[in-house]
């Protein structure tokens, strides 16, 4: 293998983004690199420029910069591919179906132009549950159905990259929960990188593998979701809703007690939930406020999950609270927990960095199944 092809194969794995420019009073200066697989969430408060980044990636907006997916460069100093020449799918916040076309013709609108590489019509309609809607006009669909058709339409244009701009934010709570499973299935069944813009952390926790954090037109961090969640220098870990997601594998199920045992890097977790097949990958969510710390393993407690852990860093939160980042499972492994405890308890137990403690986890939420088998 020569140097060039090695560089190519390295690039093939990443999405490289850098945009800079002014839009009215707003200045965007955003650059990040993210793997070209899985779901990358671009997260930040409203008005931070995340939608602009996505529009620039699609070629719908033209700011100076670089946009490359693997070895395909769509934009740099010397070139700018217009939107219709980029192999993308784009899902807008509102479904934006063509009102004058039936569901079927909406779905097929971009399919004619694409060189088929295997996302079949029947697969998509089945995946999104829209087979029974094909002959309808968009105005006779519910909000959730419309958004599903819009996602299907984007997929059938055979994209190499799917861009989603807050596809759930215009929907009510129930409809959101109707669509989320489709997005998860999409993620599992299609090998298609997705960049997903959102300002809703719960969506990000459910869907994202990688995270790009934005604030006021700049990228403040980019990396694997769990790393950014547990970084005390970033706003996520110190927020009131701080939580970590853990990738766990189903180990066993206790029928009598209704408890599922999952393993996170060898560390077992018990979760009261319905059975799941052994070996299945599950995502767990543990909120910082649900984790307390103890010096000794308490045996007289109703808490199911008491996990040996090491305090890696400690950060004061205001005057009365401490945030501890804990390492669990395999020593130096990647799994982290966050614990938010009072300053008084912290001092009473004489807690500090680099000591071993027990993390008592009051509740572990299970993000829905991700059926990939490791």
């Amino acid at each position: 293998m020569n140097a060039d092809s090695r560089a190519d194969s390295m690039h093939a794995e990443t999405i490289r983004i850098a945009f800079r420019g002014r839009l009215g009073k707003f200045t965007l200066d955003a650059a990040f690199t993210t793997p070209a697989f899985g779901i990358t969430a671009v997260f930040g408060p409203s008005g931070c420029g995340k939608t602009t980044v996505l529009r620039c990636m699609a070629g719908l907006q033209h700011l100076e910069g670089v946009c490359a997916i693997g070895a395909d460069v769509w934009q740099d100093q010397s070139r700018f591919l217009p939107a219709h020449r980029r192999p993308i799918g784009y899902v807008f916040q509102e479904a934006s179906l063509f009102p004058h076309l039936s569901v079927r013709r909406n779905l097929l609108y971009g399919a004619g132009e694409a060189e088929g590489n295997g996302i079949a019509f029947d697969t998509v309609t089945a995946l999104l549950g829209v087979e029974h809607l094909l002959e309808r006009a968009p105005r006779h669909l519910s909000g959730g159905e419309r958004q599903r058709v819009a996602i299907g339409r984007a997929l059938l244009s055979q994209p190499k990259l799917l861009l989603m701009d807050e596809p759930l934010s215009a929907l009510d709570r129930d409809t959101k929960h109707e669509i989320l499973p489709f997005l998860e299935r999409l993620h599992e069944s299609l090998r298609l990188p997705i960049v997903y813009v959102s300002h809703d952390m719960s969506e990000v926790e459910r869907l994202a593998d990688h995270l790009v954090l934005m604030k006021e037109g700049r990228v403040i961090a980019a990396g694997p979701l769990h790393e950014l969640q547990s970084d005390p220098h970033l706003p996520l870990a110190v927020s009131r809703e701080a939580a970590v997601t853990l990738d766990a594998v189903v180990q066993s199920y206790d029928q009598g007690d209704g408890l599922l045992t999952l393993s996170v890097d060898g560390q077992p977790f018990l979760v009261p939930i319905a059975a799941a097949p052994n070996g299945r990958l599950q995502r767990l969510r543990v909120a910082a406020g649900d984790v307390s710390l103890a010096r000794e393993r308490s045996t007289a407690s109703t808490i199911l999950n008491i996990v040996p852990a090491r305090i890696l860093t400690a950060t004061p939160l205001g005057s009365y609270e401490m945030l501890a980042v804990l390492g669990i499972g395999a020593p130096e492994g990647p799994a982290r927990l966050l614990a938010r405890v009072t300053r008084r308890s912290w001092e009473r137990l004489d807690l500090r960095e680099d000591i071993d403690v027990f993390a008592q986890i009051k509740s572990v939420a299970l993000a829905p199944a991700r059926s990939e088998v490791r």
Partner: protein
Amino acid sequence: MGDLSSEIWTAVRLTVELATSATIILLLVGTPIAWWLARSRAWWKEAVATVVALPLVLPPTVLGFYLLVVLGPNGPGGLLASLWGADTLAFTFGGLVIGSVVYSMPFVVQPIRNAFEAMGDRPLEVAATLRASPLKAFLTVAVPLARPGFATAAVLGFAHTVGEFGIVLMIGGNIPGKTKVLSVAVFDYVEGMQWHEANIVAAGMAIFSFIVILTMTLLQKRMARVGE
């Protein structure tokens, strides 16, 4: 009476021919202008829009005068006419069509422009993200979505051409079978004290106008429902 009615029918036929040709040309010329006015960000586009809208307020005589100059033997129209051995476009059916197109342009451009503007950027952006070239997006998305605007434009362009008078008189004269359209015929009958004939034509045009506007309103309502 037979003579008279054949005279009226000649005027009717001529009017319909004129309005039809003018409407077709208006749609062909007006659509790109409307598209440009709706989409362009050029600072001077409103100046162009104003020029297009001028016939709304200019007296037909002023417009007619300029058209006469342009179409006449010493203008570009005369030069064009010399291609087929004539020396002027004034007082010809062709000249009348050109005059009608200019005169009715605002009635065609405005509704189409409004329709293009009302649909916003989104449908075209969606089309672009689905690999549609700008031409394909225009033909398969913009035009179908702007259908109500096109319907209004066609009906207004046609009806307004039928109803024009001053311009026809200025650049067309009153030549039976060539430039004598209905609106001029009414004027002619009234001048000649032929009240009965004037009445027939005038009433016919009033009814025609009523039907046109009513049809257009109903059509628009329906299309707005379909296009939801």
